[in-house]
């Protein structure tokens, strides 16, 4: 091990090689570890336009780094690594690799909107956090959020059957988010339903749970809706991307 005080170096810059030959000299073994230079060597000029094409990210280029957002931030008070001002700067310069270092906390924004209310340049930082979180999700850098999973389950059922089945929504959501089915709040809710619901309605609930009937004459409606939503999303994204370039 050739590097002392390794803790002072970003882990992603430490390169350890099984076998390494430098200038024809075999340095495998004791000298097998190298440190990548820490300087930033380029900007991704188009990245800001990618983020501006997401709803909420439109005004990110207006930022002048006063730090009002970070100062007022609910999450910053919990975790000083949560720094909207800094991510906005990285976005504007297209320093993507730096943003990715914080991919696991950006989504924790609680949308209290204190930043957006205080921002002197109308950057709308809360929207930028949302845009960044969505970009991270779209690019596969982060897992889908629980709210996205819930939305997809809910919408999927509507499109498939023209209606939702509450029990299926809850069960599938818990399954997809790898949560136990037996939640205290859920057991309590079911108990109270059993106690207070008229027998007729309970029977219908059970029937629907088992057979998931479709809304009458649903036919190809779901298919058509799905296609329409897909088209609209693509068009909206293309429109915003174009607008961001202007």
């Amino acid at each position, binding site marked *: 091990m050739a590097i002392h005080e390794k803790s002072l170096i970003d882990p992603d810059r430490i390169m350890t090689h099984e076998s390494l030959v430098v200038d024809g000299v075999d340095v495998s073994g004791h000298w097998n570890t190298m440190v990548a230079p820490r*300087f*930033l060597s380029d900007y991704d000029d188009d990245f800001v336009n990618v983020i501006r094409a997401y709803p909420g990210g439109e005004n990110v*280029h207006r930022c002048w*780094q006063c730090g009002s957002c970070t100062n007022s931030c609910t999450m910053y008070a919990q975790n000083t690594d949560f720094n909207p001002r*800094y991510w906005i700067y990285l976005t504007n*310069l297209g320093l993507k690799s730096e943003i990715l270092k914080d991919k696991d906390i950006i989504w924790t924004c609680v949308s209290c909107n204190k930043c957006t209310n205080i921002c002197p340049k109308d950057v709308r930082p809360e929207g930028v956090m949302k845009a960044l979180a969505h970009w991270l999700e779209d690019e596969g850098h982060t897992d889908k959020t629980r709210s996205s999973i819930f939305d997809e389950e809910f919408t999927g059922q509507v499109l498939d059957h023209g209606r939702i089945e509450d029990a299926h929504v809850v069960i599938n959501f818990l399954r997809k988010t790898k949560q136990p089915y037996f939640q205290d709040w859920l057991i309590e809710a079911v108990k109270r339903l059993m106690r207070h619901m008229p027998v007729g309605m309970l029977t219908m609930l059970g029937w629907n749970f088992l057979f998931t009937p479709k809304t009458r004459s649903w036919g190809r409606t779901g298919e058509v809706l799905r296609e329409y939503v897909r088209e609209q999303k693509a068009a909206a994204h293309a429109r915003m991307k174009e607008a961001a370039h202007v």
Partner: protein
Amino acid sequence: MQNTVLVVGGGPAGLSACAGVIGAGKNVVLVEKEDRLGGAPILSGYAKLVPSGEWAKDAMGRMIKRVEDSALAKIHTGTRVVSLDGSVGDFTATLSNGERVSAGSIVLTTGFTHFDSINKPEWGFGTFEDVLTTTQMEQMVAGGKIACPSDGRVPERVCILLCVGSRDRQIGREWCSKICCTVSTNLAMEIKEISPQTDVFIYYMDIRTFGLYEDKFYWKSQEEFKTKFVKARIAEVTRAPDGKRLLVKGEDTLVKRPIVIPFDIVVHAIGMDPNVENTEIARVFGIGLEKHGFIDRAEHYTNTCGSTRRGIYVAGAALGPETIDDSISQGQAAASRALADLYALVQKTA
């Protein structure tokens, strides 16, 4: 009683002072060392002026015509004042062309000298063809085409380095040159207008687009023209390995990391130095200079535009970094002080 005011320097402040004297019906003698009038905006070939957006040759042209057309004005170009005798109310100046001028008072509008970027060799001016000054970039904009001087290619990226020759103890320039931030944000817009595919970056320590320049230049440049602002003071400019582009090295103080970024053109936002001839000017006119080398001003509240010598007034960038608009206003103010002094001897004898 004297009927003549002597104005030295034919830039914005001087032309304005002349107009002030003419407007009061008195005679003015204008002495300009260059062979034409207009001062820095004309001699250095500025493009559109801040904040009017008017082309320098049009705006200055009107100021020049107003003085040239007056029967009360006598203009000496390519001429200097070589010596001065007398005192307030009765000065006699000897010019380099041998003529003698009798004047009751004098307005000095001797301006400034652009900082010479050669004095910051680490930033590549004089070494690389594609490192320019803001004045050179202004000339390129005035020519209507943005291209790298080295090979004529359209730049993908241009960066403007602020505070070149300003706020720098290393080279004995401890002042802010006041106008470079506004000029640079404006220049970024002009570049983008001519060459939409070029991205412009401004490397700054602070942005000082004071007063109404804030939203008209800084905000507009950032929000409408997508100028990017990077907080870093550049350490050096070198040649990229491809032999064409330039590498700008420094520390991004917000990311807290060193940067080595490729650019096609690097522009120095050069500051305003005291006129290089100020020691000579101070000797000839018997006035003092302040510690940076600009002309020293008298107590300002009741001796507005005064120098350290009675009867000699100063306006514009001769006093320190100044905008064109404020230089023009000061020219008028200095003219009113100078006009009052035409009666100095009358008052003394009365």
